[in-house]
């Protein structure tokens, strides 16, 4: 286990986890508008994939996209403020949780529309291919997106044009309260790659090193001009679908408990210590550093001035 990689992945996942828990805490205090979907428990996917991306590569994300945003490099302060709807947010608080955009790091948006980010990623890949600059696009989406028309056309087109894009499905078994298997005949998402003539692979999405390895290969293939890959990451959402949903009514306590044992952050920590790659103390140090970072982000967002109503008509037309 390469120490630098392990500590980087650990820090990345800690950042997402602590960020989300702080958002949750703040939201529950009643000061945050709108509704939010937390990424807790799925951090290995964003961390493992985005570790291979530079700020010039592109990512499209989902309604559950805070983790993707952080992993791709959206500044923690501005991300926190955005979700809070503050003018100091990365988009001035005009977008909020489901509309986070940061071109400075190639982050082409969380998205309120399921699967909408898939063809958008294909398009971003087309733009880099046109420039021939060797960059790639990655689209994250859930199991729910697989049954949507945009999944079909977005991936099918990318395959036809052999574009540098990687499609990453976060299969957490549910779309809101609906089990994937209740509304889908073929629940093995990875096998759908064949329909489009591209490789499809299913992996343990809570094993960050596995995600990192497989994503690395797919991204390398994309950069080499060998076209798209579909990666299905099996993962789970221990919390509710959105903040406010207890997340229990439609799932057994055992199922939730069982998946908590597979928490990606705990697993990497255990793994790292057992393999001797890192010491407890080193991991703890990272955890503490991230804590300060998140605390500062909260303070940054909290301190933001209120919005000026006059700006409501800005930026309608470019």
């Amino acid at each position: 286990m390469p120490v630098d990689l392990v500590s980087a992945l650990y820090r990345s996942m800690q950042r997402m986890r602590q960020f989300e828990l702080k958002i949750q805490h703040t939201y529950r205090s009643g000061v945050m508008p709108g509704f939010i979907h937390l990424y807790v428990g799925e951090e290995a996917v964003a961390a493992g994939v985005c570790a291979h991306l530079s700020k010039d590569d592109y990512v499209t994300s989902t309604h559950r996209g805070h983790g993707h945003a952080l992993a791709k490099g959206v500044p923690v302060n501005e991300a926190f403020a955005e979700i809070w709807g503050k003018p100091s947010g990365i988009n001035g608080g005009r977008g909020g949780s489901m509309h986070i955009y940061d071109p400075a790091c190639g982050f082409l948006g969380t998205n309120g529309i399921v699967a909408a980010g898939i063809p958008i990623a294909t398009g971003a890949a087309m733009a880099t291919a046109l420039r021939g600059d060797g960059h790639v696009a990655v689209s994250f989406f859930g199991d729910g997106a697989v049954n949507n028309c945009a999944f079909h056309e977005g991936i099918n087109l990318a395959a036809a044009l052999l574009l540098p894009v990687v499609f990453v499905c976060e299969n957490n078994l549910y779309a809101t309260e609906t089990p994937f298997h209740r509304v889908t005949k073929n629940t093995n998402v990875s096998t759908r790659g064949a329909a489009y003539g591209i490789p499809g692979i299913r992996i343990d999405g809570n094993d960050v090193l596995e995600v990192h390895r497989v994503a690395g290969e797919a991204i390398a293939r994309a950069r080499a001009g060998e076209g798209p890959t579909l990666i299905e990451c099996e993962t789970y959402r221990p919390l509710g679908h959105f903040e406010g949903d207890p997340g229990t009514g439609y799932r057994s306590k055992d199922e939730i408990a069982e998946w908590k044992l597979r928490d990606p952050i705990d697993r990497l920590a255990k793994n790292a210590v057992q393999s001797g790659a890192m010491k407890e103390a080193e991991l703890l140090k990272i955890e503490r550093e991230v804590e300060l970072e998140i605390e500062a982000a909260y303070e940054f967002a909290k301190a933001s001035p209120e919005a000026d109503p006059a700006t409501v008509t800005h930026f309608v037309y470019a």
Partner: protein
Amino acid sequence: MPEDRSIQYVEASVEGLQEEMRLNSSVFYIGQGIGARGGNFKQSKGLWEEFGDKRVRDMPISELGQVGMGVGAAMAGARPVVDIVFLDMIMEAMGQIVEQAATIHYTSNGKIKVPLVVRAAMGSARCTGPHHSRCFYSWFAHIPGLKVVLPSSATDVKGLMKTAIRDDGPVIFIEHKFFYNKKGPVPTGEFTIPFGQANVCRKGKDVTILAMSLMVWHAMDAAAQLEKEGISVEVIDPRTIVPFDEQTLLESVHKTGRLLIVDEAQSFCGFSAEAAAMVASKAFDSLDAPVSRLGALHTPHPFNPVLEAAMLPSVDAIVTEVRRLVAS
């Protein structure tokens, strides 16, 4: 009608569905999360338990497929109700609605009917943002062949839901998120409300307000305030914008000579433009002042609460605009 009960808008809506499903076994209901979950807004509570998977079916995230299925099932003799939940999510299904559902009765020379109800919830509710707040009902009204329903009370939502399900053509049935958990009086027992009959929510003589959905409530609040200033406001809710009850509106304007149209949607190229143009033409000699339109600002829905409030028509804005209108 027997005396009323006070129940939630969403409960009244479910009652309408439930009664029609009991009356007619060809009615079935599909949508995301409307099965065991009982609906994101509780808008299907109890239906799955009563009618089971066969007639109340959870759907994957396939709005195009859902509506397309609805069209096909309706053509084949069933009476589907397709729930889109958030109206914003209907976009991919637009082809099935506009090119198929809306045209088949016409092009088949009346041989095939498409008794399809597309149900969805629209509107802003505490910063739902650009992808969960739109009110583009005017799109449907622009398309020949579609009826468009905008219920603004518990009684209306039940009576109109029953009429929608019994209608032999495609009906776009749009509730408002904000209404769902609000209580209102609903008659006990069987009743329906016909399409194309506006509701004069409040009688007045100085100015007429035409408002749809949530804006009806805002207009009523504004009217109550204005009354204290001695301004008498008549509030009209068309309830269905297709068919559109021109008569009731024109009679009111002939009386008041002044019209304000309040619309949660942007008014540019929308229903409030239509109503304004219609009145300006058909009540040309009765108008004492230009028709005024108060719609959402012509911007996407901002997430920030301050900006969102600035974007949407408010009770205060209505009051101010009515004052200006009567003074002009």
